[in-house]
């Protein structure tokens, strides 16, 4: 019993941290601080997933999001030189609309979830052995083709990001390997036929300053 109470206390603590950090993401002035708050949100949510016995996905969330995507966000935020003042000017104007829409959605969704759902308890752990074995068996049997397509999507995303952000500089002098290897001898050396001309005899220059 004390074990379950400990789990509930952990859930509430992580959920409060995650929600507070999410509020900070949408409301802080500095974008760098917003990215760091988002990192905290992801980390707390990963702890919640750990509590739901989804260990593999919790660790993947930390590795993929905190390790890669958030670093990418931070990189872009720090690379772009944004002045903060004009960014904030519509904040007060749109604040009532945003809060109103969010509260209405929250009330509606909580109404759909209902009070009865508050007592649903989990059965025994369906994984049996381990979460990663459970997930991997499903992933590599039923979902093998989507798994391959996901790899393709990642490759397309990589290529698209490189192509979009690549800037071809016109002033740089680069080698073009295609033209280099396609070159033939007539393109480089031109043989010119000339009639041979006998050189006239040149008198050696007499040095006169040695008197």
């Amino acid at each position, binding site marked *: 019993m004390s074990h379950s109470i400990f*789990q509930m206390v952990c859930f509430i603590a992580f959920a409060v941290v995650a929600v507070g950090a999410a509020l900070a*993401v949408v409301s802080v002035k500095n974008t760098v601080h*917003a990215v760091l708050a988002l990192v905290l949100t992801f980390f707390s949510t990963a702890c919640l997933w750990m509590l739901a016995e989804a260990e593999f996905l919790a660790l993947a969330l930390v590795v993929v999001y905190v390790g890669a995507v958030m670093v990418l966000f931070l990189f872009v935020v720090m690379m772009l030189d944004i002045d903060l003042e*004009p960014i904030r000017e519509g904040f007060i104007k749109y604040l009532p609309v945003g809060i109103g829409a969010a509260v209405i959605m929250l009330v509606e*969704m909580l109404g759909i979830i209902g009070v009865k759902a508050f007592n649903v*308890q989990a*059965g025994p752990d369906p994984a049996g052995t381990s979460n990663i074995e459970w997930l991997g068996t*499903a992933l590599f049997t039923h*979902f093998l083709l989507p798994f391959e397509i996901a790899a393709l999507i990642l490759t397309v995303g990589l290529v698209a990001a490189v192509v979009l952000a690549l800037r071809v500089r016109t002033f740089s002098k680069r080698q073009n390997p295609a033209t280099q290897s396609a070159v033939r001898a007539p393109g480089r050396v031109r043989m010119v036929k000339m009639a041979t001309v006998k050189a006239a005899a040149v008198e050696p220059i007499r040095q006169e300053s040695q008197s």
Partner: protein
Amino acid sequence: MSIPLSWYIVFATVLFCISIAGLFINRKNVIVLLMCIELMLLAVNTNFVAFSRFLGNPSGQVFVFFIMTVAAAESAIGLAVVVLMFRNRRTINVDEIDSLRY
């Protein structure tokens, strides 16, 4: 595992509504909008994880795996577009990006 299912759903709902409010509030900064979309995907993923655990079906967690894949590709391309836009227009203000409108 003694946490009720509804706790996870309520947590995901609150996270989703916060990100909806963030989309309304931050009308000036594309990067914050992208971060709000990431928050929404996180809320949806939390629902998937919770239902997968409580129904004993691994498909939900496999779906979270795919959503994370697509979200990573999406944020990479989105940030590349933001960098390109800032390079051409010197701004990432949403209100100033309206040249397709006229």
